[in-house]
């Protein structure tokens, strides 16, 4: 069980930041989609930049091993286009309405928000629906 502790701590930090940065706020998401503030773009761009730079550092300097001794490798997404665009459109449409993507849903559920719990229940239903319909969808 102890080996899961680093994941738990990282998750706590992630949830804390999502609330403190108000990335889990419906208001901030509307502000973002209407280009009225740099705040959310700043979060996303600096997150991408930080991840990009640290991955370059890991590749060059680290021995390329994780704490538990595995060789670090970055898995490639499956090739394709349609499923990424269609899926993205559907998810994005939901995000623009409800103002919460999956990370913030979990963070907001932690604050005790009943509404966020309903969104999570819906997201599980939607995931299940995808699983059931998968072979009938264009990919």
């Amino acid at each position, binding site marked *: 069980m102890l*080996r899961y502790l680093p*994941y738990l701590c*990282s*998750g*706590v930090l*992630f949830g804390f*930041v*999502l*609330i*403190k*940065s*108000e990335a889990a*706020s*419906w*208001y901030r998401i509307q502000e973002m*989609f209407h280009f*009225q*503030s740099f705040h*959310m773009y700043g*979060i996303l761009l600096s*997150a*991408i930049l*930080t*991840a990009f730079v*640290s*991955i370059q*550092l*890991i590749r060059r300097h680290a021995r390329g091993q*994780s704490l538990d001794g*595995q060789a*670090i490798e970055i898995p490639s*997404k499956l090739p394709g*286009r349609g499923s*990424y665009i269609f899926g*993205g459109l*559907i*998810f994005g*449409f*939901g*995000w623009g*309405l*409800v103002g*919460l993507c*999956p990370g913030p849903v979990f*963070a*907001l559920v*932690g*604050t*005790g928000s*009943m*509404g*966020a719990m*309903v*969104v999570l229940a*819906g*997201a599980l239903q*939607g995931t299940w629906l*995808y*699983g059931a319909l*998968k072979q009938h969808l264009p990919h």
Partner: protein
Amino acid sequence: MDWLTRPWPWYVAGPIIGLMVPLMLFIGNRSFGISNNLRHLCAITQPGKVDVEFFRYDWKEHVWSLVFVTGTGLGGYLAGVVFADPNPVQLAQATQDMLLSWGFLLPADSLVPDELFGASVRNFTFLFACGVLVGFGTRYAGGCTSGHAITGLSTLQLPSLYAVLGIFTGGLLASWFFMPHMLIG
């Protein structure tokens, strides 16, 4: 200890979020992404009688990820309840004007508007339906903001760029053409 209750600027929050990618790789060679957990939760609870192939895999391989989102909920509790910010979300003036024109009140003591998240049959139907779109869309696209926009773009993966373009287009459509009419026709 003021910094624990106040909101954090983007240049503090963004880098911490970005660090999750190398952190997951460094801890256990894992790829950072949140929406996979929705699949794991379905796999765990799939009843024996309904057998959907998409959920037939060994979810125990992914316990780390479920532990991570459990932490995310805990972090949400700490930041939103224990160290709650007493002040309302500070929005741009243009956003405040826009919200008022949509028939919303300005933010008060919550990150989400009571007009959409307050307990009512209408609201919960709306929230559930949005959740279905989020769950369906993220699985169809194979990731969400974390897995595609952050992990995918920072590792220069073309599929993630397609996904992000789709996500942003969908968000713009919803936010520009549907949200303004949600409360008032």
